């Protein structure tokens, strides 16, 4: 694993997300009531900033057009939506959120097919 220290836990309020940009990669880290989950920050539909979405359980709702994605798997919550998001392993140590930025994973790699 290749953990990168991102930020202190208190910088991501409960049930909100925050964007982090590293080079060309933008991720969104969410605090699901004390559990931190990371996805890529761009909605596959029209590129909406998912970090700004409302959380519903472990799903996030894109603020632009209301697409739902599961933060644990990156999968869309409705079957009619074809694309899924990459998720990143995330953990908390000494009050700091760490993300493995090299281990982004899409459940459906050839989703568009």
């Amino acid at each position, binding site marked *: 694993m*290749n953990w*990168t*220290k*991102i*930020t202190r836990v*208190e*910088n*991501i*309020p*409960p*049930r*909100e997300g*925050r*964007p*982090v*940009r*590293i*080079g*060309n*990669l933008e991720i969104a*880290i969410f605090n699901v009531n004390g559990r931190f989950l990371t996805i890529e920050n761009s909605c596959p539909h*029209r*590129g*909406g*900033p998912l970090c*700004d*979405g*409302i*959380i*519903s*359980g472990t799903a996030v*709702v894109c*603020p*632009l057009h*209301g697409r739902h994605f599961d933060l644990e798997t990156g999968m869309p919550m409705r079957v009619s939506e074809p694309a899924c998001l990459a998720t990143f392993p995330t953990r908390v140590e000494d009050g*700091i959120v760490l993300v493995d*930025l*090299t281990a*982004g994973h899409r459940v459906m790699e050839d989703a568009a097919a």
Partner: protein
Amino acid sequence: MPDKLVVAGNGMAGVACVEHILKCSPSFDITIFGDETHVNYNRIMLSMVLAGEKSAEEIMLNDIEWYRSNGIHAHLGVRVARIDCSARAVIDGEGRRTEYDKLILATGSSAFIPPIPGVDKQNVHVFRTLDDTRALLAKARKGLKAVVIGGGLLGLEAARGLQVRGCDVTVIHLMESLMERQLDSAGGEYLKRRIESLGIRVMLPRQTAAILGNGHVDGLRFANGEELEAELVVIAAGIKPNAALAREAGLKVNRGIIVNDYLETSDPNIFAVGECTEHRGQTFGLVAPLFDQARVLAATVTGNRGPVFSAPAPAAKLKIMGVDIFSAGSIDESEPGVEVIRYEDPSVGAYKKLLLKNNRLRGMILVGDIADEPVYMDWMRSGTDLAAMRRQLLCPPPPSDPGLEIAEMADSETICGCNGVRKGEIIEAIHKYGITTLGKLKERTKASTSCGSCAGLCERLLRAVAPDFQEETRTTLCSCFPFSYERLRDIVRGQQLKSVEEVLAVYGNRKGCEVCKPALSYMLDMLWCGNHDEDRSARFINDRVHANIQKDGTFSVVPRMRGGVTSPDELRRIADVADKYKIPMVKVTGSQRIDLLGVKKADLPGVWRDLGMNSGQAYTKGVRMVKTCVGTEFCRYGVQDSTNTGIELERRFENLFTPHKFKMGVVGCPRNCAEATVKDLGFVGQEGSWQVVVGGAAGKSVRKADLLITVETSEQALEAAELFFQYYRENGNYLERSYDFVERLGIEKIRKETVYAPAEEKRKLLDRLHRSKALSRDAWLERDRPANPTQFVQIEPMEKVLETQLV
């Protein structure tokens, strides 16, 4: 002289029987003794009183006027102490003697209290009567450690009621699984998970060995030696028939008072009905069979002996909102020849189990999804041969003739078990009052007004009987809550809930979604006049950062420009900001304001600071603007000072939230240059007066506003506006524009409840508006005091990352 009928017991079964007797001849001289001091109330709904969903008054079934107008002597708070069978008289607790020709024992049941040391300590309660409920309500408070002993229907309902009141609740049950008499172990496990997801702890199996404490309870000790802290204990371990009176009188009594099929006891002049009875070895705890008993006994007592009572197959349903449980028939799968069909889906918490014998349905357990209950009950009651339907048993098709089920029911069959309303009565009411909707049916007959489980049946009955049946649109807020927005508002108000998470935890699915969270955020702000626990995570991004998100994730910024009036100084600052932050577009809006588009989130605080202007709330469901014309200030035709009146109107309402966006206009003459008649609220100036108009629209819908009132002075116009504005805030459904609101309620009703309301009501509306206004503030002040440190900033990783490592 009519015969004297004495009824010992003023509960649901006894009074239901009296109601039937009153409909028959001959008439009796009736006396009712009731141990409780209350008139007859709906005991089944005590859990709703405990949960605050109903008031004590709302569960009254017969008011004192009913007793009076039927000539019934009611002795409330007086119990029958003794029966003198040979002299045909009862002796009451006050020593009075009352003679009878016929005596009905309807003494009910009382809570079974297991012989545990310490049950007599203070703060150990039972949950059986209205007084018990009131005693619990008096003690329930936030954080109180409450333990309910008993995981049956009543125990779970008590637990939920206490939890809704904010108590920290644990349910203790002697058995391996909850409601083990109605559910199997898998069903019990699904129920347990659902109960736990509501925030109630469940401990199984636990035998309570002692209730601990010095005087008042402070804990429990279990048989395994484990201890649990408790400040309040509710014992809900079952009921036992009140049969002592009958036993002492020498009647035949086993567990309950023994009755035959005609509800006669071993004494020819004494009868019994309700939970105090034992019929063919069976005692009763659910209400439906007791209403049948009441009807049978009424026939027997009035000399129409003939109808017989036969106990129906037991069916149980939990009356906890959001916990769907149904169980009916025989659930014993060990019997030879019984086949079991089972379905479960843990992700949605649904469990179904059907028990068949010879292709006929004998019993069922439904947890989490009880939608098919009517079809199953129909199959079970009618003994339908299911051989041809074996593949569809778990997802039964809708009946081919939906009216058949109704047609097959006798008029005397009970539709609403809670309120004892029969099919015949409903049909009579439908014709008599021309009922076409479920709402009207509930109003007229009381059917389906208690636990609501017969709503589907009532609707099917209405559909089959009413010539002009109208389906009511479903009005639940979203799938997170089983209520409409209006109902939820009453609950939140009644329960004094102050945060979105609290409402979701107590009444929703604990998750919430993008529909209910913003709606609840608005509701709480409105109900508590801004004095609530604001939760930014429950609000749309626009309300988290006070700007309007655009398609590329940037934001638009519209500063407040009251009445559309600006100054060279403001315009210069706007121009400087546009340069400094390289704002891609500056546009004049349709609302007489200026929009800065394409602002990055991180730049928002700086933009606001440099503008030095207030938020125009162009991003929220709230007060947008007041569009004005130049009125008497400059216009040759102006007859009213529209500009300054508009500015004052905007000042009074700005920074407040509304169910949907709220746009206003003020014009100085009827030429209407600022289009006040197509705004949510408008003032139209005339010579010597203002017309205040409401509910106009020129968006997706176009609607000319209705006239609310005509007044002489600007101050009067402003007050009328305040009344309407607050009334809409309080009564509008979230996302309901004023034009839909005005159409839904009708302008006449709105006038009556705002400008024509009694002075006291007006004062209250204004008072709540002014309280909200006093706590409101310019959202852009968060430029210097952000709600949290990363509200606007992009997080920078604490460590450098080599880009080559990234995939």
